């Protein structure tokens, strides 16, 4: 099952998208977007895995020991930080929408705008 981790990433992406499309609440929608984004963490980390590799941390470990790719881990870290920043922005926007439209249901907001 050497493609399983990639399929898990694809599944998380699709589940997140399904949540976004069927969402009835803006906070729920924001969380679904975060779930969609987290599929990229799984994909990045799965790609960087080296069979039998340890963490790319060599404190107390002999240099040259097989270790997984540190670059994708650094990218995942960046990804998470950006995800948090974007989530905060979306929630602030949702708060604004709630004040203006008086509802958190995306469908009702669309109806108000016609």
């Amino acid at each position, binding site marked *: 099952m*050497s*493609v*399983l*981790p*990639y*399929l898990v990433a*694809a599944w998380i*992406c*699709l589940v997140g*998208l*399904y949540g976004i*499309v*069927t969402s009835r609440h803006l906070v729920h929608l924001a969380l679904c977007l975060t779930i969609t984004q987290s599929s990229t963490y799984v994909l990045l980390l*799965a*790609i*960087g*895995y*080296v*069979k*039998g590799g340890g*963490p*790319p*941390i*060599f*404190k107390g*470990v002999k*240099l*040259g020991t097989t*270790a*997984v*790719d*540190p*670059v*994708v*881990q*650094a990218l995942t*870290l*960046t990804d998470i*930080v*950006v995800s*948090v*920043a*974007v989530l*905060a*922005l979306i*929630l*602030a*926007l949702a*708060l*604004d929408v709630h*004040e203006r439209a008086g509802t958190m249901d995306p*469908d009702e907001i669309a109806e108000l705008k016609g």
Partner: protein
Amino acid sequence: MTRTVRIGLFSAAAVVLAILLCWTAVDLPDFGNYRGPYGGLLNHVAPAERHVTEVVTATVFDYRGFDTLGEELILFTAVAGVVLLLEQGERGERPEPSESIGSDAVRVLGALAVGAAVLVGLWLTAFGYVTPGGGFQGGVAIASGIVLLWVATSLRVWGPFGSDSILDPLEGVGAGGYIVIGLAALASGLPFLTNLFGPGRYGTLQSGGSIPFLNWAAALEVTAALLILFSKFLEEYVVPLAAGDER
């Protein structure tokens, strides 16, 4: 577009997307067999060149330091956006927040958790380039610890930690400090963000050259940014909501 139509359209598109994703997954290198040259190279080069033992942090703050600058600025911009969005609305009179926390257990456990979380955060940051950790992770832990002050005590105690006059300069120093360290390299005739100092002693706190400085700058930026976010949401949403419930 009605809900049914939308879900129908999505289902059709999702099937196509799923097929494409599966097709891609099958053609990717087998799990565990990827041999990207860059990662393996860094695992050999970073400990030798910088004397750090945590290659992920070395990647974040040295070999991909410029990337991280962009990441910090994204955080900075997002926080500025949230502050603008939440502060522009006229929300009328600010109700006086209530101070009562009924449970002694919450107070005692909370007070313990504050110290523990801040300590873990400082440790994660300080040893970020020796053992697992780093400025981003440490900053999040420190900020969470300080936020717990509000849970465990009262808004009055939390107040100074959430005040703009303290957090804004700290965030600026965090983001600006990162750039200043990069400019310092430029001033001494090297490319931007070049690691300036010697590698130091292998696997100790005195290793990594400019990595520790960038590490602490990032920790400061992340701590301040998260505290600003939290204090804005608290001021503009949680406090009015709690006051509304009491009426």
